[in-house]
């Protein structure tokens, strides 16, 4: 019971202190807000990029074109080898006749052109789906080593570029967020430092009358916590409403159907919890740092 009374008193004192040093508290809250908005953007970006990468991984295939002279034995040989390759998820043989039929369905011009030609100019091919998109080029290179393989294509360059850009964006955002988190913790630490100085006599009296070190430190730690919580309110609201609106306005796709957005619920809920947790931790870390450095008891 005594511990509960000390706890509730600490919380009351923390709230009082937040409002007593309002300008500095506001600066800390604002800094936390900006940081958390950027954290939210980083989370939305990186999670969606991961989703896009997953989609690419699922949908990306290597099309292995075989020479016209490829024998049935050679076709069996390559298919047997594909079964043993680590990065190959599955594969499917597609004959030139199947290609022709598919292309003819795509447009009338193609249909006319292909009908005009006496001989089918297309090649037999094997469509290979890979397990890991990062090893795509390596797998394609292995397949090109066969004498009877005319070419193995997967849209080189483009895929690497997209993934590279996404990775760079994610990395840049993470770096910026880490820097901002540090600045926020420092600002909160400064706020608490001033609180400690302004409550010097109070702390001295508390020590004299026999308050334990924990009960003296607790209000300052709570103050950092409160600043963190207050700072996360706007980012949470912006995340919930902003992302839901973005999703509804775009219909869940950005530019192309390959870039699909993650559904808002329960995604925004998780993001909100993460933001709140970061706000609390940064606030408490900032105040803990100030208490350790400036509260000599």
């Amino acid at each position: 019971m005594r511990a509960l009374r000390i706890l509730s008193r600490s919380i009351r004192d923390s709230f009082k202190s937040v409002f007593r040093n309002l300008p500095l508290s506001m600066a800390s809250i604002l800094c936390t807000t900006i940081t958390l908005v950027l954290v939210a953007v980083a989370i939305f970006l990186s999670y969606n990029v991961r989703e896009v990468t997953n989609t690419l991984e699922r949908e990306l295939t290597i099309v292995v074109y075989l020479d016209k002279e490829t024998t049935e034995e050679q076709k069996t040989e390559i298919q047997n080898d594909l079964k043993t390759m680590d990065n190959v998820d599955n594969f499917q043989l597609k004959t030139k006749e199947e290609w022709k039929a598919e292309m003819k369905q795509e447009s009338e011009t193609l249909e006319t052109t292909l009908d005009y030609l006496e001989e089918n100019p297309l090649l037999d091919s094997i469509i290979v789906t890979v397990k890991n998109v990062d090893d795509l080029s390596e797998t394609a290179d292995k397949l090109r080593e066969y004498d009877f393989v005319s070419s193995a294509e997967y849209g080189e360059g483009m895929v690497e570029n997209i993934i590279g850009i996404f990775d760079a964006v994610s990395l840049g955002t993470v770096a910026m967020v880490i820097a901002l988190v540090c600045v926020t913790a420092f600002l909160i630490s400064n706020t608490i430092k001033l609180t400690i100085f302004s409550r010097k006599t109070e702390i001295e009296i508390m020590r004299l009358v026999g308050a334990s070190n924990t009960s003296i430190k607790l209000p300052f730690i709570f103050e950092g916590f409160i600043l963190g919580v207050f700072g996360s309110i706007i980012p949470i609201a912006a995340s919930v409403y902003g992302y839901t609106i973005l999703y509804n306005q775009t219909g869940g796709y950005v530019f192309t159907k390959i870039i699909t957005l993650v559904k808002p619920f329960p995604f925004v809920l998780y993001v909100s919890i993460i933001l709140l947790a970061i706000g609390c931790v940064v606030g408490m870390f900032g105040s803990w740092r100030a208490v350790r450095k400036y509260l000599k008891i």
Partner: protein
Amino acid sequence: MKLIKVEHAYKIYKNGTTAVADLSVTIDKGEFVFVIGTTGSGKSTFIKMLYREEKPTKGKVIVGGIDVAKLRNSKVYKLRRKLGVVFQDFKLLPKLTVYENVAFALETLGIPESEIRPKVLKAIDAVGLKEKTRNLPSELSGGEQQRVAIARAIVNNPKLLICDEPTGNLDPETSKGIMKILENINQTLGTTIIMATHDKELVNKMKKRVLVIENGVLASDTKKGSYKVHESVKNS
């Protein structure tokens, strides 16, 4: 029964200054003891060692059964709950009323609200400030502010009351009033009082035990002593 037992206590600061050297003294429960000495004599260091504001470098300082020298920083509160401290500069919280200042000591310790009120009113009554419970420190005279500080120090019924020059900022008449209150607390509640002072007149008038500290050592320890004893010891 011994409340304080100091055995060969030393306090040597990091810069090499010896504030207290080989000091041994015992104080019984219920005693009223003056600690006198010139500025820089080591009396304040001795007083501070009793409530563990300073840690003895060597020797034993036992207060209410607690060995101050062995007490870790995180456990100091256990000692402080057994005693009250009064300072020359009162150390009141300016934005709190008389009642709130006294109650602050109990609230900090997590005492239930129902217990706080009677205890606070009793302490305020003991120092004669019943009519001023709602006043702020700025609305009180120096003597009244010191009385609030005394009320705060005794509100938790401590066994020991340490007063570090409590009359240093007060005029002789007000000082007499403070001494009356302290004597009353000593006699009615049985609280042991140790008071550091420069006030010759008070010491001579009260006829209590006097410890004289000079150059960090206990120069004399006299029952019903006075400042004159100090002078004679110094001259001998």
